[in-house]
């Protein structure tokens, strides 16, 4: 799928989210017109990286040791994306699943509306869950495979 015109596209920085499942998800987000900027979680460069890129959103591995550096990098600049950890109703539940089940923490700038945020989180969660279901089905199928049959 060809990315949409991205003149006004949201720019999302991805830090340390490198699993195969996450890659698929981010391809999907890209196809919806989001500009993705993947980076590793090298702490030393995070300060200049965040300031120079000025992203609208940041997806970060919830268990990355670089989380606290990221927190510092955005804390002094309120126009940079801020951690999204409290919300009303459905969004709160989605955030809990995103952090607890999927292992992704989210930072969003003022320009990202709660409705868009909800849609993005739900998309992330449903995608990661379908990957997990698929993985479980493949694992079950492999267990059921007779051992004396060679698989080529």
């Amino acid at each position: 799928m060809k990315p949409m015109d991205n003149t006004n596209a949201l720019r999302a920085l991805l830090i340390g989210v490198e699993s195969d499942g996450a890659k698929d998800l981010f391809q999907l987000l890209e196809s919806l017109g989001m500009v993705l900027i993947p980076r590793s979680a090298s702490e030393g460069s995070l300060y200049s990286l965040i300031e120079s890129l000025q992203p609208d959103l940041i997806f970060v591995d919830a268990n990355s040791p670089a989380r606290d550096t990221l927190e510092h990098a955005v804390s002094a600049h309120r126009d940079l994306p801020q951690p999204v950890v409290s919300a009303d109703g459905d969004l709160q539940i989605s955030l809990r699943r995103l952090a607890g089940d999927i292992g992704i923490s989210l930072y969003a700038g003022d320009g990202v509306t709660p409705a868009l945020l909800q849609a993005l989180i739900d998309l992330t969660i449903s995608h990661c869950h379908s990957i997990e279901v698929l993985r479980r089905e493949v694992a079950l199928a492999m267990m059921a495979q007779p051992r004396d049959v060679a698989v080529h």
Partner: protein
Amino acid sequence: MRVTPMTTLEKKDIKLGYIPLTDCAPFAVAKEKGFFEEQGLNVSLSREHSWASIRDKVGLGVLDGAQMLASMPVAARLGAAGPRLDMVTGFVLDLNGNAITLSNRLYDAVVATDPDAEFSPLAATQALNLVIKANTQNKRPKFRFGVVFPVSTQNYELRYWLGCGGTNPDTDIDIVVISPPDMVDHLKSGDIDGYCVGEPWNTVAVLGGLGHVVATKYELWNNSPEKVFAVAKGWAEKHPHSHRALLRALMKACAWLDQPENRLVTAELLTAHGYIDQDLETVAMSLCGISQRHPGRAPEDAPDFHVFNRYCANFPWLNQAEWFIAEMYRWGQLKNPVSISAIAEQVYLPELYREVANEIGVPCPAINRKTEGNLTPQMLQNFAPHMGPNQFLDGKRFDVGKVLSYLEQHDLSHANIVELRQSNETHG
């Protein structure tokens, strides 16, 4: 003695988060020595990789509670340098436990400026100030220091120490945030010139010949709170009996932990059970009251390097929460004026601690605030031996109800005292 029957616990399967530091010991001891189990709780401990993650997971209910830096729940309530979340704590897990380490290169420059810096944290920060000034005059890059979180006790301690020597931490140096286990590598690579962190990461640097300890948290403010057990306010309201059961278990674990004969056992437990990825010898040092400040030299006695129970350590003193709020104003993390005492009362819960202590017959202070900076070890020999010394490095006093007067005594400060007075009329 009045103890809540186990059947009334709202939740028995509890998940608590911790960071792999020496002072995660109260959680590890409560779990491994059966103090949680004794209260009818099935606690699983989740090793976390960042303070931000701990805050988020407690806020979102992924974790039931966690070890937090003593300043964190207060900062979360205020939305200081981060999101606004309602957290509460009825229990301080430990006092002291941090230190400031300088790289060999910077330490040598400091001691060359003033040889007393080797023995005196005050002389060290004053000498460092001269080294920083010379560095600026020679148009060299700023020195960089590491702390573990924007609203961390370590950030306030490093800033306080630098301020004592006349150094402005916002303009004269750079402060960066680095996770504790990565701190030593950053010092080794020369990326940073010093840091303030909890154990074992100061001992690791010194034993590795990479740096020197120039000040301990104890020397900056004797027996000040380091970590607390915090939960979301909503969780506390929904699970009052489970919350109390957790506090009872932690109270007993901390009393056990402060018996000198149990410290080495605890170091074994922390290293053998994978709570900390360091060898026994390194972790045992500070836990057993030994401080290795300089590579290759004899270690020193530091019996109060970690305090887990004595000196009323576990009591959540309201004035100590107020000190953290004062520091947030001092360093510009908070700007809008609030009632400092009211916020402290919403987050630190001395009354809850008192009720739980009474349930199990543990002695407890009858007051919720105390003056800091007025008790020397000599004075304590004559009266109040159950309290510890509480002096500040700069000799200042932090009187009960005089938060703003205390703030006013500091030259380096972003606090707008006039504005703050309007919100704190009765608290000088």
